[in-house]
């Protein structure tokens, strides 16, 4: 079974875009490097056949910063099978009053939220990997 694709929006304008990006890097680079990988969202939808192949028919997890849901929409449009959609804004709603930082740099609190989210996503990825293995 191929790796689970974890794709973030990486929106440049908001802290939540940076948090989505960092959560994806945390999952694919540190927590679950053997079973997950990330891909460039923009390349996937660029129109290049090679780009689309990276997600087409693959099990994907998307991480969006805000309710615009750019990663989820674009990955689905490119033919990815999005099994879980995460939004950083939903994590932020569990941390009322916290200053997470800016689109350039996160605060310590921002990083904590990233780590929490990355933990949840990794668990989900493990669940999906197991499902994939038992389905052959």
């Amino acid at each position, binding site marked *: 079974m191929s790796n689970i694709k974890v794709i973030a929006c990486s929106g440049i304008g*908001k*802290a939540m875009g940076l948090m989505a990006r960092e959560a994806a890097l945390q999952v694919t680079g540190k927590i679950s490097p053997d079973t997950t990988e990330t891909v460039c969202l923009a390349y996937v939808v660029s129109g290049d056949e090679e780009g689309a192949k990276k997600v087409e028919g693959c099990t994907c997890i998307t991480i969006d910063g805000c*309710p615009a849901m750019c990663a989820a929409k674009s990955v689905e449009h490119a033919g990815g099978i999005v099994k879980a959609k995460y939004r950083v804004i939903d994590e932020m*709603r569990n941390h009322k009053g916290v200053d997470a930082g800016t689109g350039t740099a996160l605060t310590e609190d921002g990083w904590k939220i990233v780590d929490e989210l990355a933990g949840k996503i990794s668990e989900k990825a493990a669940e999906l990997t197991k499902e994939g293995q038992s389905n052959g």
Partner: protein
Amino acid sequence: MNKGYAVLPCNGLDKCAGCVSKEIAIMLSENSESEIICPVLFHTSDARYNKIAQEKPLLVIDGCATRCASKLAAEKNLKITEKINITEEAKANQITLGKGLQVGEEEMRLAKIIFDKLTHVQEDAKTEDTIAFPASLTYEVYKKDKFVFRLPKEERFYFNENDVWAYVVGNKARIGVTDFVQKSLSDIMFFTPPAIGNQMEQFEDAGNIESAKAVFEIISPVSGTILAINEKLMEAPELINQNPYEQGWIAEMELSDFENDKELLHTFDGYFEVLKRKVDEFHVKH
């Protein structure tokens, strides 16, 4: 979602009416979103109940003419939305309260009648279709950088300097915030609504909205009573970002003094200039 009451019962222990008052408070807390304020604790230390008293409409239940619960509410400067007097209700429903302190069949019947009346009032407030709002609006836009600020041109819109609008139909109004607010805040994550039943003066707080950047107090453009809130915002406050004039409306009110209130409000022409000035000064940048 029914927001329920903040219930302040008299809890009088020397009369049956006091016991019925407590019974109704328990029924409300168990069968609706209501929360009980313990009058004894509230009298000595009110910190614990301040939040409930602010967020929910206050229901005071007095057992008798001594009106201890009403007096306590007045002492704590609370706005009373609804008042019940058990002795008076018993008379009105031709129910004789027992001389003892046990809550018997007749007392429970009275409690049920009052409970039904109270929960029926809340349902009416929630579901009544109060405002005939247009299916779509016509907007003027002001652009700054890549950001577009819309303002509805319809005649019935009025605006205060605090960037809150009211759409007025007869003696009712729907209120919400303008594009300037939702763009300045960016992604709105929390919505604290005004309590249904709350009576407010023009320019009083009507709840707030919060993003990662700031908390915005919604300053009511009109005086009146809150009839309904946009309950979709409780789960999806981002609707305000999507369109603060249509799906992102905040609350509906019954107006009490619009003829005077409107003297201090802008129509489209006046507020559009205010909006442009604020946008130019603020220069929204992520």
